[in-house]
């Protein structure tokens, strides 16, 4: 059995790694860090683990369906997609490839997440001073128009040089 399982697990991983995010189809779930694990359990069922980006992520059901359907089409009869809530997803998990693809598609990628101190979460009354590059012209002369954008994971900005509005993926 083992000899059969190993190549098929590799195939399963390869297939799962090609499934893209429904809202940002230039990124795979693997690029985003949403795809956490692919393994076979003792009964031969393929177990795929994914984690939501935000609690209210509306794309979870679609991601689950897409993974299942792609893997079933790839010859796996028994596929189970599981949710993993802990540890909570962070933009730090987006791969270098993912960061590059975001920029190429006009979305400013997240910068690193600040390490949280032990005490209570500090209040930030002024807009944090992050250097955010315009994905169109590269200028750092940009301003934030809204902390909340078209999807949970993005904020709205505009470039003061080339005047283009753009999305930034929020650090979380």
């Amino acid at each position, binding site marked *: 059995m083992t000899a059969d399982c190993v190549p098929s697990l590799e195939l399963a991983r390869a297939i799962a790694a090609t499934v893209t995010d429904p809202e940002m189809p230039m990124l795979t779930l693997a690029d985003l860090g949403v795809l956490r694990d692919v393994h076979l359990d003792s009964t031969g069922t393929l177990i795929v*683990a994914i984690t939501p980006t935000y*609690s209210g992520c509306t794309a979870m059901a679609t991601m689950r369906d897409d993974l299942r359907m792609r893997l079933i089409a790839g010859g796996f009869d028994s596929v*189970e997609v599981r949710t993993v809530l802990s540890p*909570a997803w962070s933009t730090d998990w987006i791969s270098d490839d993912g960061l590059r693809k975001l920029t190429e598609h006009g979305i400013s990628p997240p910068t690193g997440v600040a390490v949280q101190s032990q005490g*209570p979460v500090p209040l930030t009354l002024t807009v944090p001073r992050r250097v955010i590059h315009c994905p169109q012209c590269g200028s750092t002369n940009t301003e934030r128009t809204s902390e*909340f954008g078209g999807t949970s994971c993005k904020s709205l900005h505009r470039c003061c040089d080339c005047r283009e509005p753009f999305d930034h993926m*929020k650090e979380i």
Partner: protein
Amino acid sequence: MTDHDSAYEGLVDADSHDQWAFGTSFDDPLAGVDTTLAPGIDGTDLAKYCLMLGDDALITAQRLAQWSTRAPELEEEVALANIGLDYLGQARLLLARAAAADSTVVPVLPDGSPIPAEDALAFFRGEPEFRNVRLVELDNGDFACTIVRLLVFSTYRLAQLHHLRSSRDPVLAAVASKGVKEVTYHRDYAARWLVTLAGGTDESRRRTEAAIRRVWPFVFELFEAHPVEQRLAAAGAGVDLSTLRAEFDSVLAQVFHAAELPEPPGAKATSVGGRAGRDGIHTEAMGYILAELQSVARAHPMGRW
């Protein structure tokens, strides 16, 4: 049906018959998550506690969603809807956790109903079964009123979730860890707006002060620990609310100082023999919220959503 070439294809459930209403079929938000109870934690208490936390989030989400198409600016509409969506997501996980901890809290639906437990809890409970604090059900009022209420709620919620990250219930701890990141953004948003409104025009200042007078009488209730909350805090699964008050006050003092606002009033809304939202005693507004939230689902108890 591997790819969604047709917008309608994705809406049709592969094994549905005649019960389909709208949307795709449900999926369990806790699919694959281990919901076994840790030793020493009472399932009935944990379920009630998750209803309290979940209902606070659900009713807040419903109130914020009511701003859609009527916010003062498009950016604020998007912001309020996004914040509402975060709370809706938290509510869904918490209601699902409540149902897994004690299935007897879930309303009984007709045999064969495809409605999942968390939806049954949201759409088929009556008003006295909701455990949210009364603060979250207050009318939206004007934008200042919504901002003041959001500041109070997100400050309270963030302190709660921050402590719940170390809950002995691993599901609650995971939901809290995720929620902390979201609510940090909500609190900053509301705090910045409060400072802006208080320091804006005479009119915005007047409205902000009126909003504080309207909302504050419901603040004390957030910290009145219900016996369920006390027992779970003692068991290491919940938060000791008395430890949160100082943190809450210190955050709000910072915001009020920056906004050059006087200390908030100490008035308290009346409760019924000491009972309020956590006991299912609500304000008049609650019935109207539930009518809007529940009427369609209740008309279709066999609906697949």
